[in-house]
């Protein structure tokens, strides 16, 4: 029983960390986006993602049973205790990089939430059913921008191609399998995630074809196997900013 809970906790933390870190990255655009409308859009998506992370962390704390709150999990872990994808740490860089990072993750998240909405774990299925609806708006947002930029000017097409090349090594890690996932699939906590990779590539190919982006750009050597606690250099910088208030004023509340 303890083992089953350990696996579920680990899975909730992975998913929560993905959403928290990407939500944080998007929040860094607040006040800096190319237009006011886009500033609002990116902040709204950040809000959705951080809200989803909160649900996941709160539940993770309950599953763990050590009395850790959503805030404890979000703000008071060390770098290696965050088990997010490296993709979500990637720098905002220019707008094209932000959009491609978001497209890759949102397409993955929408498909994953769909699978998790039929999870054998009731609470996880509830979180997923709510998040799935929100994620479909995120996919539409980044897909529409991908097309506008990919099929836009020479400059925008070059930038979006550069963004795809930059993020491509982080595609495979979304579909990496390990013992934790296998046990969760076996016990029915998560559905068949093996179908994710093919479904993701179909969706992306469809968007890329409209956007006139070469899908060959997706083929590259993967950086990955990152899940348990490996990070890029960016993570320390992200955490320094994210955790500053809680580290400086322990227990500080709004």
């Amino acid at each position: 029983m303890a083992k089953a809970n350990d696996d579920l906790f680990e899975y909730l933390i992975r998913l929560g960390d993905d959403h928290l870190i990407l939500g944080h990255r998007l929040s860094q655009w607040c006040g800096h986006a190319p237009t006011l409308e886009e500033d609002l859009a990116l902040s709204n998506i950040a809000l959705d993602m951080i809200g989803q992370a909160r649900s996941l962390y709160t539940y993770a704390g309950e599953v763990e049973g050590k009395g850790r709150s959503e805030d404890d999990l979000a703000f008071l872990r060390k770098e290696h205790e965050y088990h997010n994808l490296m993709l979500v740490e990637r720098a905002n860089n220019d707008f094209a990089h932000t959009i491609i990072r978001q497209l890759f993750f949102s397409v993955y998240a929408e498909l994953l939430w769909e699978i998790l909405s039929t999870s054998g774990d009731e609470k996880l299925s509830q979180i997923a059913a709510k998040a799935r609806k929100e994620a479909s708006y995120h996919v539409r947002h980044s897909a529409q921008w991908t097309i506008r930029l990919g099929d836009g000017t020479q400059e925008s097409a070059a930038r979006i191609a550069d963004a795809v090349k930059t993020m491509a090594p982080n595609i495979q890690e979304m579909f990496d399998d390990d013992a934790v996932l296998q046990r969760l699939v076996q016990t029915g906590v998560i559905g068949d995630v093996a179908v994710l990779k093919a479904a993701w590539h179909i969706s992306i190919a469809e968007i890329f074809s409209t956007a006139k982006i070469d899908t060959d750009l997706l083929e590259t050597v993967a950086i990955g196997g990152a899940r348990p606690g490996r990070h890029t250099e960016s993570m320390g910088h992200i955490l320094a900013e994210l955790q500053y208030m809680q580290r400086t004023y322990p227990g500080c509340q709004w």
Partner: protein
Amino acid sequence: MVELATKHDKELENLIWKIAEEIPDPEIPVIPLGDLGIVRGVEIDERGRALIKLTPTYSGCPAIQLIEDTVRTALENAGIVAAIERVISPPWTTDWISKAGREKLRAYGIAPPQKTSSSKPALFESDTPRCPRCDSIKTQLVSQFGSTPCKAHYVCKSCREPFDYFKCL
């Protein structure tokens, strides 16, 4: 004795519904919580303790904490102590916005959701709500995300006014 308690419980339950449903939404004060469909249930247990269930519109709705505090205070002012539970299932949908609520939104300048939540939009399809000011159907999507997570930003090509659209969820 049992019957008396039941009658009292029913009255208390109704009173809690009434108080909670009339509280205005903090971000769109023209629409009360009842019309928004976020009051999901009131329960009185066998010992007479009250529980009220509220649901956020979006996972990241920044107003939910304030809404819970406001409901708690309003109930306390009426002499009622009730526990508040945040529920997320079934997930909130714009289908739960009442007919009266939709009319209040329109009168306030926010176009109400057009479709049902089950009609999942195609990737490049966008709704064409009527302009809440001049009723024109010549409206155009500016941004999928408006001033709050639950709204999209539109502009009317007839009267040229920008407006918010409560998007389907």
